[in-house]
Structure formats: structure tokens, C-alpha cells
């Protein structure tokens, strides 16, 4: 089957979504990331793998955190980095996405990191760029956020190397979450035998079970005996309205507290893609507790993004 992310001989050409990536490529990215974890601890935090290359961060949707981690990753690989906040520049002047992309191509960029509010935007751009350019999806609508999922499974693998023996629960707003969709595919592709989602029905897409997950609407049942709890962010605008009655009720029913976490395995770990809403989806005592791996996630995020960029650059 046609796979827009891979070259004809099966190498990674773009990173657009986890779905459709073979296990071998995911493992290659995670293994490569291991070798980059040490770079940040050195005196000189740079390797020359992308020297002379230009990486463009094109953000059609605002994001400081993700853009910064991509920027740091590219700079540690010695690339030149251009940040473009399109939501505040050309698009407001009526320029189309393709015009923006063509202009950057004309400036001889080698790699595009794209964030956009529309699902499929990264696929769309990948379909229309010149053949030498690599596209990395840094989040498209509700569809995918593959580097986030990769850093999540990288973190999990570090703490729980026996992936084929894990029970993992994703908690929260799956419906609007590109992170959740990518995490589910990453976990199932790496052989995690049981992936659960826990949320009220208003925050789950129809047919979510077709993604290969077990559906729970109750934290007590869903968290029982899990090895990993992956929290999802709840956007402010979704806390009150027709999806949920209030942030308080959400915290009470689906917020992660020490008491609820105690139902999971004693050595269970807790992840969160950030930024967190303390006291809404997660209690501070859990976020800062001994089972939390939320800050290591951020550190590993840079190594994983370095791995993705260096692998793409090597596949010319």
C-alpha cells in the first residue's frame, strides 16, 4: 500500500503520523534517541550531523513549547533554524499554505517542521513539497503528533523495557487529542498488549475501539493494575459547555489523584504531554510525585526529535 511517509525502498521520508510506520522504524528512532540522550550532558552540547542544513519551524498554530524543543533539537544537530509564526504573519495577509511553503523552499530549506490546526495539513504539505525536502508533523488538528508519541514511548521504554508485557491507560480528552491518537498507534505497534482509554463519552470519538483500545468510563475500573498512566491535556474551552459541566466535576470523576493512582500497579508511572492543568486533570501531588516521569519526558523529547531529524537527513 502507498505510504506517503516512506521512500520507495521503505525508509523514512517524512514523519507525518505514527499510523503506517513499521515497528522497525519506530525502534530505529528510539534506539537513535538513546545515543542522543548523553549529548545534552556534555560540555559542548552539539553534534555536526545537520551542519549546513536549514530547518524551518512553520507554525500555523501558536506553540512555544513544541517549537522550542524542535529548535533546540535542530541546533544541537548544528542545523540553522528559522522559526516562522505564520498565524501572525503571511496567512493573515491572505497567503495560502502552499505559497508559504513554496517561498521557504525557494530559500533552500531542507526540513519543514509543521504545526497546523487542520487535520491532514502535514500530509497535504508533504504531498506538495519538492522531493528533497523532509516534513515533520509537529501536530495537525486532532490527527497526529508523532514526535510527542515517540518521546512518550521512549520514556515508557526507559522505565518499562518489557513493552510486550504492559497494560497502559490513556486518560482524558481523546476526542480532540492528536497526542492520544499517535500514542495509541505507537503503543500498539510496539506490541503493548492492552491499551485502555478512560474518558466520558463526550470526550471519545465514535468507533474509538477500532483503533485497538479497550474503552472505560470509570477510573477505578480503568486504572486497575495498569503499568503506565498517560494523562491527556484538557483544553480550557472544553471544561464547561456541552462536553463537560465543570472543571470541578471533571477532576472529581476523571482527575488523577493519589487515591486513584493507588489502584494501578505500585510501580506504575505517570506521563503527561504538558502543559498540565493541575487540579483539573491531575493533582499536584501526583504530578510532582515519585511515580511521575513528566519532566524526564521533556528531556527525552529533545533526544527523540534529534533522532527523527538525523534519520530523515540521512535518508536523502
Amino acid at each position, binding site marked *: 500500500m502507498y505510504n506517503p511517509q516512506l521512500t520507495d525502498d521503505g525508509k523514512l521520508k517524512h514523519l507525518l503520523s505514527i499510523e503506517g510506520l513499521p515497528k522497525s522504524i519506530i525502534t530505529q528512532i528510539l534506539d537513535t534517541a538513546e545515543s542522543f540522550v548523553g549529548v545534552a550532558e556534555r560540555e559542548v552540547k552539539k553534534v555536526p550531523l545537520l551542519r549546513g542544513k536549514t530547518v524551518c519551524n512553520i507554525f500555523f498554530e501558536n506553540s512555544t513549547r513544541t517549537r522550542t524543543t524542535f529548535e533546540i533539537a535542530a541546533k544541537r544537530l548544528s542545523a540553522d533554524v528559522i522559526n516562522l509564526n505564520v498565524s501572525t504573519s503571511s496567512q493573515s495577509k491572505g497567503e495560502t499554505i502552499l505559497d508559504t511553503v513554496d517561498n521557504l523552499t525557494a530559500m533552500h530549506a531542507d526540513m519543514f517542521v509543521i504545526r*497546523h490546526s487542520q487535520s*491532514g*495539513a502535514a500530509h*497535504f504539505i508533504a504531498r506538495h513539497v519538492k522531493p528533497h525536502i523532509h516534513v515533520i508533523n509537529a501536530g*495537525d*488538528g486532532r490527527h497526529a503528533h508523532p514526535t510527542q508519541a515517540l518521546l512518550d514511548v521512549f520514556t515508557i521504554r526507559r522505565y518499562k523495557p518489557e513493552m510486550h508485557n504492559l497494560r497502559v491507560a490513556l486518560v482524558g480528552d481523546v476526542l480532540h487529542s492528536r497526542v492520544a491518537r499517535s500514542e495509541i498507534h505507537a503503543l500498539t505497534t510496539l506490541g503493548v498488549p492492552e491499551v485502555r482509554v478512560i474518558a466520558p463519552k463526550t470526550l471519545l*470519538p*465514535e*468507533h474509538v475501539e477500532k483503533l485497538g483500545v479497550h474503552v472505560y468510563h470509570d477510573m477505578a475500573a480503568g486504572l486497575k493494575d495498569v503499568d503506565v498512566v498517560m494523562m491527556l491535556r484538557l483544553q480550557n474551552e472544553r471544561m464547561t459547555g456541552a462536553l463537560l459541566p465543570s472543571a470541578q466535576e471533571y477532576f472529581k470523576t476523571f482527575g488523577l489523584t493519589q487515591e486513584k493512582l493507588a489502584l494501578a500497579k505500585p510501580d506504575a508511572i505517570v506521563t503527561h504531554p504538558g502543559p498540565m492543568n493541575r487540579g483539573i486533570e491531575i493533582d499536584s501531588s501526583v504530578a510532582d510525585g515519585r511515580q511521575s516521569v513528566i519532566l524526564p519526558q521533556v528531556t527525552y523529547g529533545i533526544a527523540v526529535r534529534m533522532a527523527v531529524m538525523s534519520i530523515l537527513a540521512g535518508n536523502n
Partner: protein
Amino acid sequence: MKIHIKNGRLIDPKNGVDAKQDLFIAAGKVVGIGQAPADFTANQVIDATGLVVCPGLVDLSARLREPGYEYKATLESEMLAAAAGGVTSLACPPDTDPVLDEPGLVEMLKHRARQLNLAHVYPLGALTRQLQGVNLTEMCELTEAGCVGFSQADKPITDTLVLWRAMQYAATFGFTVWLHPQDTYLAANGVAHDGEIAARLGLRPIPAAAETIALATILRLARETGARLHVCRLSTAESIDMVAVAKAEGLPVTCDIAANHLHLTEYDIGFFDANCHLQPPLRSQRDKDALRQGLANGTIDAVCSDHTPVDEDAKLLPFGEAEAGATGLELLLPLTLKWAQEQSLPLSTAIACMTTRPAAILGLKSGHLGLQTSADVCIFDPEQYWKIEARALKSQGKNTPFTGMELAGKVRYTILDGDIVYKT
């Protein structure tokens, strides 16, 4: 102009003809079937050996984009596309700019279409002014100007009181109300069927209930008001069941589907193919099967092209931002033939779905080839495959989910009122 079409396979479903018979045309009318009338001397003889000769196709929905959207398509380009597709009569929805809500606009459109003389154009007037769902249009005046029914295009009336009044008013004069059922709230911002693909791709969903809830409302109001109702572009299995029940009850209800929906499902969206961004959305395999079955058993009265030319830039966007719609006039015939062949149905059934049956909905005298009817004829080669690609299409809209496919059924001649308006 006297035309003798010889050696063709004449298929005229309404008159029960499917045989090798010659057709004779004079002064814009059919004057002989099987044998020439006395003292007939043809100016032109068309050798239709190996070809099918059938009534010109009747398309219940073709957007011509004039007035207002000439950058998407012009009357001329789209009427050429109609002729190339064997379509001799077409109904066009009122969602132009300005909206077809005033008699003057309708007269202008009819006049322009007559001048081009490539197809009979039957405008649908707006049911409410500006399609805003608030104030009724002057339906009597619009009918005098040439409207054959009243429609909201893809802008459903959300206020059920207005909908009720509009249907009552239309029923007063016996006008047909054409409605595409879609609940505005359930479908808000949606771009794809609420199924597995929307879940995977993170596309905003349009649940099947958006259609069935609106349909239930419309059918109930049709029963209350006695309005003649034509339900447009159904897409779900349950809708077909609901229409079947309404028909069994004796309500004056007809319905149609778009040819695209006979062949495609949500899975055809693949990796965000914007050509598959259609309104209503492509639904599940089960829905598709029900539409195919419903057209075969007559619950669905007609198949239309739902021709919606979109300019290239409006499709060159991420799926959700791309404009919905696909070109269709030139694909109606091959897509319907493909359906009939796959269902092992006779050619005459396929042709009836595009001629007799839609003509009855429009109340036209055409749609068949009886003696002394207008000589609107489509002559096509049912075996000839052609590749769907931009340069093979006359329409200014080049986007279709079928790009790159080879389909059987190529129009060779289109005759309108006895004049050859297309040949290849």
C-alpha cells in the same frame, strides 16, 4: 434538420423498448421508431452500430455556478460538460451569488441558457430569501419565471416553524419542495462521516443522525402539510428505510442520491484526499450497499451527478479547509453504468435512473423517446473505456475522486431538440 440514427440499440425504458431499432428525427421531434415515416429523407445519417441510443439524460442537480462564481465555472463551460456527458436536461440549485430568489435572476439564467442552447436548464428557486431560512420567496412569481421547484441547496432551514410555513405555502400551489436533510447543529463544522476514518484521521464528524433527524422532521412536516417533497442527496442506510416507509404510507415523496455515493465510502478518503470531501460525506460500506440496493429496487427514484465544480485553489488546502464538492456531469453516465453492471442489472434500469425517473420528478414531458416527443437523445458506447483526467473533462471543475480511473461508457453524440450539440 432530419437525422436518421441507424443500427443502434435503442433503449427507451418508459416505452419498454430495448431493441435494435433505427430512430428518425425531424423538426426537433422523434418522427419514427424502427421505420422511417413516409417521404423521410435524412440530411444526416448517424451510424450507431455497437452504440446505445437512449433519451438524453436528466440530471437533478448540476451547479452551473452562474451568476456569481464564474471563477469556479461558467454557464458555457458547464453546459458544454452537460452535452459531453449526454445530459440534455438539468436542474440547478439556487445557491448562486446572488441567490436565485428573484424572478429577474431566474429569467436571466434561463435566457442565457437558451442562447447557449446546449441543454435544457430547469432552475430551482430559493425556498427562502437569500437561503437564510427566515422569509419566504415569491414562489408564484418564481414559478412563472421558470422555476420547477424550491430548494435550500445545502443550507437547511434550522427554524422548524419557518420550514413548516414554507412547506404549507408551497403545498398551497402544488409546488415541489426540494430539501437536503441535514441537522445544522449535529453537522456543524463536520467534514467526514462519523466513523472509523474520522476517528483515525481526527476529522470533525457528521453523524448519520444529522441526516436522519432532519429527514424525520421533513417527512413529518410533509405529512402535516401535504407538500410534494423531493429529498435530495441521501447518504445513509436508515434514510432509505425511512423514505420507503413514507412511500408505503402514500406520501408524495421522491428522493435521489449522488452518483459518487454509489461507489465510494469513508475509506476512500485515504490520506486526506480532498477530492473525497463531499457534501453529504461519504459514509460506511453498509450505507453504500443500502444506497445501491435502494436505487435498484426503486426506493431511490433517481441518481444525479451532484455536479459541483470547485476551483483548483479551493481544493489545494488541508482536507477540512478544502471546499466540498466534485465535478460530475461527465461522470453520471459511466458511474451509473458501473453500478448497474456490478449489480447485474440491465442497461435499461441504469438508463431509467437517469432519464424517465428524474424526468417524472421534474414533471417533464421528456425523458423518453416516444413519437412526437422532443428529440433529446444520448448516443453512447457502453464498452468504450476512457480515463478520467483533467484534460478529458470539459467542465471547468477538474476535481473528482475518480481521477485516474478508467470507466466504461463514452458519449458519442448528444442531440438536443433535434440538433447535434456534441459529438466525438
